[in-house]
Protein backbone atom coordinates (compact mmCIF):
# COMPACT_ATOMS: atom_id res chain seq x y z
CA UNK A 1 0.00 0.00 0.00
CA UNK A 2 1.57 3.20 -1.20
CA UNK A 3 1.39 6.60 0.49
CA UNK A 4 1.21 9.89 -1.29
CA UNK A 5 4.30 12.01 -0.72
CA UNK A 6 2.44 14.45 1.52
CA UNK A 7 1.23 11.57 3.70
CA UNK A 8 4.68 10.01 3.84
CA UNK A 9 6.11 13.36 4.88
CA UNK A 10 3.47 13.75 7.58
CA UNK A 11 4.49 10.36 8.97
CA UNK A 12 8.20 11.16 8.83
CA UNK A 13 7.57 14.56 10.41
CA UNK A 14 5.78 12.84 13.30
CA UNK A 15 8.89 10.70 13.76
CA UNK A 16 11.09 13.77 14.09
CA UNK A 17 12.61 13.79 10.62
CA UNK A 18 13.14 17.39 9.45
CA UNK A 19 11.06 18.55 6.48
CA UNK A 20 10.81 21.74 4.44
CA UNK A 21 7.92 24.03 5.34
CA UNK A 22 5.01 22.68 3.32
CA UNK A 23 1.28 22.28 2.81
CA UNK A 24 -1.13 20.73 0.34
CA UNK A 25 -3.38 22.66 -2.00
CA UNK A 26 -6.44 21.52 -3.90
CA UNK A 27 -6.91 24.77 -5.81
CA UNK A 28 -4.54 27.27 -7.46
CA UNK A 29 -5.65 29.87 -4.89
CA UNK A 30 -4.66 27.62 -2.01
CA UNK A 31 -1.29 27.03 -3.68
CA UNK A 32 -0.77 30.79 -3.99
CA UNK A 33 -1.67 31.28 -0.33
CA UNK A 34 0.75 28.54 0.78
CA UNK A 35 3.52 29.98 -1.37
CA UNK A 36 2.86 33.35 0.26
CA UNK A 37 3.16 31.79 3.72
CA UNK A 38 6.44 30.17 2.73
CA UNK A 39 7.61 33.64 1.78
CA UNK A 40 10.21 32.63 -0.79
CA UNK A 41 10.84 30.33 -3.72
CA UNK A 42 8.64 27.25 -3.66
CA UNK A 43 8.42 23.91 -5.38
CA UNK A 44 5.02 22.52 -6.36
CA UNK A 45 4.70 18.75 -6.66
CA UNK A 46 1.83 16.73 -8.11
CA UNK A 47 0.47 14.22 -5.60
CA UNK A 48 0.10 11.03 -7.62
CA UNK A 49 1.10 7.52 -6.67
CA UNK A 50 3.03 6.79 -9.86
CA UNK A 51 6.62 7.83 -10.50
CA UNK A 52 8.05 9.98 -13.30
CA UNK A 53 6.56 13.22 -12.03
CA UNK A 54 9.45 15.44 -13.04
CA UNK A 55 9.60 14.06 -16.59
CA UNK A 56 5.81 14.40 -16.94
CA UNK A 57 5.83 18.04 -15.84
CA UNK A 58 4.29 17.34 -12.46
CA UNK A 59 6.95 19.26 -10.53
CA UNK A 60 7.32 23.00 -11.03
CA UNK A 61 9.13 25.87 -9.30
CA UNK A 62 7.67 29.24 -8.38
CA UNK A 63 9.32 32.41 -7.11
CA UNK A 64 6.08 34.13 -6.15
CA UNK A 65 2.48 33.33 -5.13
CA UNK A 66 1.32 34.29 -8.65
CA UNK A 67 3.75 31.84 -10.20
CA UNK A 68 2.62 29.18 -7.72
CA UNK A 69 -1.01 29.78 -8.73
CA UNK A 70 -0.15 29.33 -12.42
CA UNK A 71 1.94 26.23 -11.74
CA UNK A 72 -0.81 24.67 -9.63
CA UNK A 73 -3.36 25.34 -12.35
CA UNK A 74 -1.30 23.22 -14.74
CA UNK A 75 -0.38 20.48 -12.27
CA UNK A 76 -3.90 19.93 -10.97
CA UNK A 77 -5.13 19.16 -14.50
CA UNK A 78 -2.13 17.05 -15.47
CA UNK A 79 -2.66 13.28 -15.68
CA UNK A 80 0.41 11.23 -14.81
CA UNK A 81 0.43 7.48 -15.34
CA UNK A 82 -3.33 7.58 -15.84
CA UNK A 83 -3.94 9.41 -12.56
CA UNK A 84 -5.05 12.95 -11.86
CA UNK A 85 -3.32 14.37 -8.78
CA UNK A 86 -5.04 14.21 -5.45
CA UNK A 87 -3.54 17.62 -4.58
CA UNK A 88 -0.42 19.72 -5.00
CA UNK A 89 2.29 19.73 -2.37
CA UNK A 90 3.67 23.25 -2.00
CA UNK A 91 7.04 23.28 -0.33
CA UNK A 92 9.82 25.74 0.44
CA UNK A 93 12.60 25.39 -2.12
CA UNK A 94 15.79 24.29 -0.41
CA UNK A 95 19.33 25.51 -1.05
CA UNK A 96 21.10 22.20 -1.25
CA UNK A 97 24.81 21.66 -0.61
CA UNK A 98 24.86 17.88 -1.00
CA UNK A 99 22.35 15.08 -1.57
CA UNK A 100 22.33 11.71 0.20
CA UNK A 101 20.15 8.61 -0.04
CA UNK A 102 18.65 6.63 2.84
CA UNK A 103 16.31 3.71 2.38
CA UNK A 104 14.98 0.66 4.15
CA UNK A 105 13.47 -2.31 2.34
CA UNK A 106 12.58 -5.81 3.43
CA UNK A 107 15.07 -8.34 2.09
CA UNK A 108 12.90 -11.41 1.55
CA UNK A 109 15.91 -13.64 0.89
CA UNK A 110 17.71 -12.67 4.11
CA UNK A 111 14.34 -12.39 5.89
CA UNK A 112 15.46 -9.16 7.55
CA UNK A 113 15.09 -5.45 6.90
CA UNK A 114 17.92 -3.92 4.93
CA UNK A 115 19.18 -0.38 5.45
CA UNK A 116 20.77 1.18 2.39
CA UNK A 117 22.69 4.45 2.56
CA UNK A 118 24.58 6.40 -0.07
CA UNK A 119 26.38 9.73 -0.24
CA UNK A 120 25.18 10.04 -3.84
CA UNK A 121 21.51 10.95 -3.51
CA UNK A 122 19.01 12.51 -5.87
CA UNK A 123 19.37 9.79 -8.50
CA UNK A 124 18.18 6.19 -8.67
CA UNK A 125 19.92 4.11 -6.02
CA UNK A 126 20.04 1.18 -8.49
CA UNK A 127 22.12 3.33 -10.82
CA UNK A 128 24.48 4.32 -8.00
CA UNK A 129 24.82 0.71 -6.86
CA UNK A 130 25.73 -0.35 -10.38
CA UNK A 131 28.12 2.44 -11.29
CA UNK A 132 29.52 3.46 -7.89
CA UNK A 133 29.20 0.46 -5.58
CA UNK A 134 31.78 1.96 -3.21
CA UNK A 135 29.29 4.75 -2.48
CA UNK A 136 26.58 2.42 -1.22
CA UNK A 137 26.48 1.00 2.32
CA UNK A 138 24.15 -1.79 3.38
CA UNK A 139 23.20 -3.25 6.73
CA UNK A 140 20.69 -5.93 7.63
CA UNK A 141 19.08 -5.46 11.01
CA UNK A 142 16.71 -7.36 13.23
CA UNK A 143 12.98 -6.81 13.03
CA UNK A 144 12.67 -8.05 16.63
CA UNK A 145 15.53 -6.42 18.55
CA UNK A 146 15.84 -2.66 19.09
CA UNK A 147 17.98 -0.89 16.50
CA UNK A 148 21.01 0.86 17.98
CA UNK A 149 22.19 4.23 16.71
CA UNK A 150 25.78 3.03 16.61
CA UNK A 151 24.95 0.32 14.06
CA UNK A 152 23.52 3.00 11.79
CA UNK A 153 26.55 5.18 12.48
CA UNK A 154 28.90 2.33 11.48
CA UNK A 155 26.97 1.82 8.26
CA UNK A 156 27.05 5.48 7.24
CA UNK A 157 30.70 5.84 8.24
CA UNK A 158 31.64 2.77 6.19
CA UNK A 159 31.52 4.81 2.97
CA UNK A 160 33.64 7.63 4.39
CA UNK A 161 31.08 10.02 5.88
CA UNK A 162 32.61 11.70 8.92
CA UNK A 163 32.40 14.69 11.27
CA UNK A 164 29.34 16.92 11.39
CA UNK A 165 27.76 15.16 8.42
CA UNK A 166 27.90 11.82 10.22
CA UNK A 167 26.54 13.34 13.42
CA UNK A 168 23.69 15.02 11.55
CA UNK A 169 22.73 12.00 9.45
CA UNK A 170 22.67 9.28 12.11
CA UNK A 171 19.53 10.36 13.98
CA UNK A 172 17.56 10.87 10.75
CA UNK A 173 18.52 7.53 9.24
CA UNK A 174 17.94 5.74 12.56
CA UNK A 175 14.47 7.28 12.84
CA UNK A 176 13.71 6.19 9.27
CA UNK A 177 14.68 2.59 10.10
CA UNK A 178 12.65 2.63 13.30
CA UNK A 179 9.65 4.03 11.42
CA UNK A 180 10.00 1.12 9.00
CA UNK A 181 9.71 -1.34 11.88
CA UNK A 182 7.05 0.52 13.86
CA UNK A 183 4.61 0.80 10.97
CA UNK A 184 5.22 -2.52 9.17
CA UNK A 185 6.56 -0.78 6.08
CA UNK A 186 7.91 -2.55 3.03
CA UNK A 187 9.72 0.54 1.75
CA UNK A 188 10.85 3.70 3.51
CA UNK A 189 13.05 5.85 1.37
CA UNK A 190 14.34 9.42 1.57
CA UNK A 191 15.86 10.56 -1.68
CA UNK A 192 17.26 13.08 -1.62
CA UNK A 193 18.15 13.44 2.00
CA UNK A 194 19.65 16.88 1.55
CA UNK A 195 22.25 18.83 3.43
CA UNK A 196 21.35 22.50 3.15
CA UNK A 197 23.75 25.41 2.80
CA UNK A 198 23.27 25.93 6.50
CA UNK A 199 24.61 22.42 7.21
CA UNK A 200 21.19 21.18 8.35
CA UNK A 201 19.76 17.92 6.96
CA UNK A 202 16.26 17.71 5.55
CA UNK A 203 14.01 15.21 3.74
CA UNK A 204 13.24 16.60 0.30
CA UNK A 205 11.47 13.61 -1.23
CA UNK A 206 10.38 10.27 0.13
CA UNK A 207 8.54 7.06 -0.73
CA UNK A 208 6.76 4.93 1.78
CA UNK A 209 4.89 1.67 1.21
CA UNK A 210 3.08 -0.21 3.98
CA UNK A 211 2.49 -3.95 4.03
CA UNK A 212 -1.10 -4.39 2.87
CA UNK A 213 -1.78 -7.03 5.51
CA UNK A 214 -0.73 -4.58 8.24
CA UNK A 215 -3.43 -2.01 7.52
CA UNK A 216 -5.59 -3.21 10.39
CA UNK A 217 -2.70 -2.80 12.82
CA UNK A 218 -2.32 0.87 11.94
CA UNK A 219 -5.84 2.18 11.67
CA UNK A 220 -5.02 5.13 13.96
CA UNK A 221 -2.26 6.31 11.64
CA UNK A 222 -4.32 5.67 8.50
CA UNK A 223 -7.28 7.55 9.95
CA UNK A 224 -5.01 10.43 10.88
CA UNK A 225 -3.64 10.54 7.33
CA UNK A 226 -7.15 10.26 5.87
CA UNK A 227 -6.51 6.97 4.07
CA UNK A 228 -9.90 5.39 3.43
CA UNK A 229 -10.44 1.66 3.80
CA UNK A 230 -11.54 1.20 0.19
CA UNK A 231 -8.45 2.86 -1.25
CA UNK A 232 -6.26 0.16 -2.80
CA UNK A 233 -3.29 2.51 -3.13
CA UNK A 234 -1.59 0.61 -5.89
CA UNK A 235 0.74 2.30 -8.37
CA UNK A 236 -2.04 2.18 -10.96
CA UNK A 237 -5.82 2.12 -10.67
CA UNK A 238 -7.36 -1.39 -10.69
CA UNK A 239 -8.62 -2.68 -14.04
CA UNK A 240 -12.30 -3.72 -14.43
CA UNK A 241 -11.07 -7.35 -14.35
CA UNK A 242 -9.31 -6.74 -11.02
CA UNK A 243 -12.35 -4.96 -9.60
CA UNK A 244 -14.51 -7.96 -10.53
CA UNK A 245 -11.93 -10.22 -8.86
CA UNK A 246 -12.19 -8.20 -5.66
CA UNK A 247 -15.99 -8.45 -5.86
CA UNK A 248 -15.80 -12.25 -6.14
CA UNK A 249 -13.65 -12.34 -3.02
CA UNK A 250 -15.79 -9.89 -1.08
CA UNK A 251 -19.12 -11.56 -1.89
CA UNK A 252 -18.39 -14.63 0.20
CA UNK A 253 -16.51 -14.65 3.50
CA UNK A 254 -15.40 -18.26 3.19
CA UNK A 255 -11.70 -18.40 2.35
CA UNK A 256 -9.75 -16.18 0.01
CA UNK A 257 -9.96 -16.15 -3.75
CA UNK A 258 -8.73 -12.73 -4.58
CA UNK A 259 -5.84 -10.32 -5.04
CA UNK A 260 -6.37 -10.70 -8.73
CA UNK A 261 -3.85 -8.82 -10.85
CA UNK A 262 -4.33 -8.65 -14.58
CA UNK A 263 -1.64 -9.54 -17.09
CA UNK A 264 -1.92 -9.99 -20.83
CA UNK A 265 -0.94 -13.64 -21.24
CA UNK A 266 -2.90 -16.69 -22.37
CA UNK A 267 -2.58 -18.94 -19.30
CA UNK A 268 -5.11 -18.22 -16.56
CA UNK A 269 -3.82 -18.98 -13.09
CA UNK A 270 -5.70 -20.21 -10.05
CA UNK A 271 -2.87 -20.39 -7.58
CA UNK A 272 -2.07 -20.01 -3.90
CA UNK A 273 -1.27 -21.52 -0.50
CA UNK A 274 1.64 -20.60 1.72
CA UNK A 275 3.56 -18.45 -0.73
CA UNK A 276 2.51 -20.71 -3.59
CA UNK A 277 1.11 -17.87 -5.67
CA UNK A 278 4.40 -16.05 -6.07
CA UNK A 279 6.39 -19.26 -6.49
CA UNK A 280 4.03 -20.60 -9.13
CA UNK A 281 3.73 -17.29 -10.96
CA UNK A 282 7.54 -17.11 -11.15
CA UNK A 283 7.72 -20.76 -12.26
CA UNK A 284 5.28 -20.11 -15.10
CA UNK A 285 7.39 -17.18 -16.27
CA UNK A 286 10.61 -19.18 -15.90
CA UNK A 287 9.28 -21.82 -18.27
CA UNK A 288 8.31 -19.21 -20.85
CA UNK A 289 4.63 -19.10 -19.99
CA UNK A 290 2.55 -15.96 -20.27
CA UNK A 291 0.23 -15.54 -17.32
CA UNK A 292 -3.14 -13.94 -17.86
CA UNK A 293 -3.42 -13.09 -14.19
CA UNK A 294 -2.03 -13.45 -10.71
CA UNK A 295 -4.27 -14.38 -7.78
CA UNK A 296 -4.19 -15.80 -4.27
CA UNK A 297 -6.31 -18.70 -3.11
CA UNK A 298 -6.35 -19.99 0.43
CA UNK A 299 -8.30 -20.61 3.60
CA UNK A 300 -10.74 -23.03 1.98
CA UNK A 301 -12.88 -20.88 -0.31
CA UNK A 302 -16.36 -22.15 -1.05
CA UNK A 303 -17.28 -23.98 -4.24
CA UNK A 304 -19.15 -20.87 -5.36
CA UNK A 305 -16.14 -18.63 -4.81
CA UNK A 306 -13.73 -20.90 -6.69
CA UNK A 307 -16.35 -21.27 -9.42
CA UNK A 308 -16.87 -17.52 -9.80
CA UNK A 309 -13.12 -16.84 -9.91
CA UNK A 310 -12.69 -19.53 -12.57
CA UNK A 311 -15.49 -18.01 -14.64
CA UNK A 312 -13.95 -14.56 -14.32
CA UNK A 313 -10.54 -15.77 -15.49
CA UNK A 314 -12.03 -17.72 -18.38
CA UNK A 315 -14.02 -14.66 -19.44
CA UNK A 316 -10.80 -12.76 -20.06
CA UNK A 317 -10.08 -12.46 -23.79
CA UNK A 318 -7.04 -14.46 -24.86
CA UNK A 319 -7.11 -17.03 -22.05
CA UNK A 320 -6.54 -20.41 -23.69
CA UNK A 321 -6.22 -22.66 -20.65
CA UNK A 322 -6.09 -22.40 -16.89
CA UNK A 323 -3.62 -23.95 -14.50
CA UNK A 324 -4.87 -24.77 -11.01
CA UNK A 325 -1.83 -25.09 -8.80
CA UNK A 326 -1.24 -24.73 -5.10
CA UNK A 327 1.34 -25.54 -2.49
CA UNK A 328 0.45 -28.48 -0.21
CA UNK A 329 -2.78 -27.43 1.47
CA UNK A 330 -3.94 -28.20 4.97
CA UNK A 331 -6.84 -25.84 5.56
CA UNK A 332 -8.03 -25.69 1.97
CA UNK A 333 -9.84 -28.76 0.70
CA UNK A 334 -8.76 -30.27 -2.57
CA UNK A 335 -12.21 -31.67 -3.35
CA UNK A 336 -13.92 -28.33 -2.75
CA UNK A 337 -11.44 -26.57 -5.04
CA UNK A 338 -11.88 -29.28 -7.67
CA UNK A 339 -15.64 -28.88 -7.55
CA UNK A 340 -15.45 -25.10 -7.79
CA UNK A 341 -13.02 -24.98 -10.68
CA UNK A 342 -14.74 -27.70 -12.70
CA UNK A 343 -18.10 -26.07 -12.14
CA UNK A 344 -16.68 -22.74 -13.31
CA UNK A 345 -15.27 -24.30 -16.46
CA UNK A 346 -18.51 -26.14 -17.27
CA UNK A 347 -20.66 -23.07 -16.60
CA UNK A 348 -18.36 -21.12 -18.94
CA UNK A 349 -19.21 -23.62 -21.67
CA UNK A 350 -15.91 -25.51 -21.81
CA UNK A 351 -14.74 -29.08 -21.29
CA UNK A 352 -12.66 -29.29 -18.07
CA UNK A 353 -10.39 -31.93 -19.65
CA UNK A 354 -9.49 -29.46 -22.39
CA UNK A 355 -9.51 -26.21 -20.51
CA UNK A 356 -7.62 -27.18 -17.33
CA UNK A 357 -3.96 -27.60 -18.29
CA UNK A 358 -3.10 -29.09 -14.93
CA UNK A 359 -4.56 -29.43 -11.46
CA UNK A 360 -1.89 -29.67 -8.79
CA UNK A 361 -3.40 -29.20 -5.36
CA UNK A 362 -2.08 -31.77 -2.93
CA UNK A 363 -3.23 -31.97 0.66
CA UNK A 364 -6.38 -32.41 2.66
CA UNK A 365 -9.15 -34.43 1.01
CA UNK A 366 -7.00 -35.02 -2.03
CA UNK A 367 -8.31 -38.55 -2.64
CA UNK A 368 -11.82 -37.16 -2.85
CA UNK A 369 -10.63 -34.35 -5.09
CA UNK A 370 -8.80 -36.74 -7.40
CA UNK A 371 -11.99 -38.80 -7.82
CA UNK A 372 -13.72 -35.67 -9.15
CA UNK A 373 -10.84 -34.81 -11.46
CA UNK A 374 -10.73 -38.35 -12.84
CA UNK A 375 -14.46 -38.22 -13.52
CA UNK A 376 -13.99 -35.10 -15.66
CA UNK A 377 -10.76 -36.29 -17.32
CA UNK A 378 -8.63 -33.50 -15.87
CA UNK A 379 -4.86 -34.05 -15.67
CA UNK A 380 -3.84 -33.83 -12.03
CA UNK A 381 -0.86 -34.59 -9.88
CA UNK A 382 -0.03 -34.97 -6.22
CA UNK A 383 2.85 -33.65 -4.11
CA UNK A 384 5.35 -35.97 -5.81
CA UNK A 385 5.26 -33.47 -8.70
CA UNK A 386 6.89 -30.20 -7.69
CA UNK A 387 5.23 -26.84 -8.22
CA UNK A 388 8.00 -26.04 -10.68
CA UNK A 389 7.31 -29.19 -12.71
CA UNK A 390 3.56 -28.60 -12.62
CA UNK A 391 4.10 -25.09 -13.97
CA UNK A 392 6.35 -26.47 -16.70
CA UNK A 393 3.69 -28.99 -17.76
CA UNK A 394 1.02 -26.29 -17.84
CA UNK A 395 3.14 -24.00 -19.99
CA UNK A 396 3.99 -26.85 -22.35
CA UNK A 397 0.30 -27.71 -22.77
CA UNK A 398 -0.60 -24.14 -23.66
CA UNK A 399 2.23 -24.00 -26.19
CA UNK A 400 0.99 -27.21 -27.81
CA UNK A 401 -2.47 -25.68 -28.02
Amino acid at each position, binding site marked *: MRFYEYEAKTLLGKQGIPLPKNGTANTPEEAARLAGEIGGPAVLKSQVLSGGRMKAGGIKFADSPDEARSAAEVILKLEIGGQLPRSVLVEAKANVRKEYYAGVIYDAVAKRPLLIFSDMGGIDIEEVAEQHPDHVARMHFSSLLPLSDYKVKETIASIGVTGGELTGLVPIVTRLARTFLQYDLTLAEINPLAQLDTGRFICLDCHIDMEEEARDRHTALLNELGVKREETRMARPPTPFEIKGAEVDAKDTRGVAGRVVEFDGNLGLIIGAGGGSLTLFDAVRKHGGKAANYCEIGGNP*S*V*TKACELTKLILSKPGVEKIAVMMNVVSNT*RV*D*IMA*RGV*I*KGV*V*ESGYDPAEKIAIFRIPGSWED*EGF*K*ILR*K*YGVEYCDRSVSMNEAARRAVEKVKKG
Partner: protein
Amino acid sequence: MPSMFIRVDADSSVHSNAELAKKLTEICPVDIFAQNPDGTLRIVEDNLDECVLCDLCVEACPPGAIKVVKLYEG
Protein backbone atom coordinates in the same frame (compact mmCIF):
# COMPACT_ATOMS: atom_id res chain seq x y z
CA MET B 1 -27.63 -24.77 -12.82
CA PRO B 2 -28.40 -28.15 -11.22
CA SER B 3 -25.88 -29.58 -8.78
CA MET B 4 -22.97 -31.38 -10.43
CA PHE B 5 -21.34 -33.21 -7.57
CA ILE B 6 -23.76 -33.90 -4.72
CA ARG B 7 -27.33 -35.06 -4.42
CA VAL B 8 -29.19 -35.47 -1.15
CA ASP B 9 -31.95 -38.06 -0.98
CA ALA B 10 -34.30 -37.71 1.97
CA ASP B 11 -37.21 -40.07 2.34
CA SER B 12 -40.76 -38.86 2.86
CA SER B 13 -40.62 -39.37 6.63
CA VAL B 14 -37.86 -36.78 6.82
CA HIS B 15 -39.58 -34.34 4.47
CA SER B 16 -42.78 -34.33 6.46
CA ASN B 17 -41.20 -34.18 9.91
CA ALA B 18 -41.10 -30.49 10.89
CA GLU B 19 -38.96 -31.11 13.96
CA LEU B 20 -36.36 -33.02 11.96
CA ALA B 21 -36.50 -30.42 9.22
CA LYS B 22 -35.74 -27.72 11.81
CA LYS B 23 -32.81 -29.73 13.14
CA LEU B 24 -31.37 -30.29 9.67
CA THR B 25 -31.72 -26.60 8.86
CA GLU B 26 -29.77 -25.75 12.00
CA ILE B 27 -26.94 -28.26 11.68
CA CYS B 28 -26.01 -28.09 8.01
CA PRO B 29 -22.93 -25.81 7.80
CA VAL B 30 -23.61 -24.88 4.19
CA ASP B 31 -27.38 -24.37 4.30
CA ILE B 32 -28.47 -27.28 2.14
CA PHE B 33 -31.69 -27.62 4.16
CA ALA B 34 -34.48 -25.12 4.71
CA GLN B 35 -38.06 -25.28 5.91
CA ASN B 36 -41.11 -24.54 3.85
CA PRO B 37 -43.73 -22.23 5.42
CA ASP B 38 -45.63 -25.30 6.61
CA GLY B 39 -42.53 -26.62 8.39
CA THR B 40 -41.72 -29.40 5.94
CA LEU B 41 -38.22 -29.91 4.62
CA ARG B 42 -36.94 -28.17 1.52
CA ILE B 43 -33.60 -29.04 -0.08
CA VAL B 44 -31.81 -25.95 -1.38
CA GLU B 45 -30.56 -27.11 -4.76
CA ASP B 46 -28.23 -24.14 -5.21
CA ASN B 47 -26.23 -25.14 -2.16
CA LEU B 48 -25.86 -28.87 -2.80
CA ASP B 49 -22.42 -28.59 -4.38
CA GLU B 50 -21.17 -26.79 -1.26
CA CYS B 51 -21.69 -29.98 0.80
CA VAL B 52 -18.59 -30.63 2.92
CA LEU B 53 -19.47 -34.31 3.49
CA CYS B 54 -19.65 -33.82 7.23
CA ASP B 55 -22.51 -36.35 7.54
CA LEU B 56 -24.18 -34.34 10.31
CA CYS B 57 -27.47 -34.68 8.46
CA VAL B 58 -27.07 -38.44 8.16
CA GLU B 59 -26.37 -38.72 11.88
CA ALA B 60 -29.34 -36.51 12.76
CA CYS B 61 -31.84 -38.74 10.98
CA PRO B 62 -32.96 -42.32 11.52
CA PRO B 63 -30.62 -44.81 9.80
CA GLY B 64 -31.06 -44.76 6.03
CA ALA B 65 -33.58 -41.91 6.04
CA ILE B 66 -31.20 -39.48 4.35
CA LYS B 67 -28.42 -40.20 1.90
CA VAL B 68 -25.67 -37.96 0.59
CA VAL B 69 -24.83 -39.17 -2.91
CA LYS B 70 -21.54 -38.27 -4.57
CA LEU B 71 -22.42 -37.91 -8.24
CA TYR B 72 -18.79 -38.29 -9.26
CA GLU B 73 -18.56 -41.81 -7.90
CA GLY B 74 -19.59 -44.93 -9.72
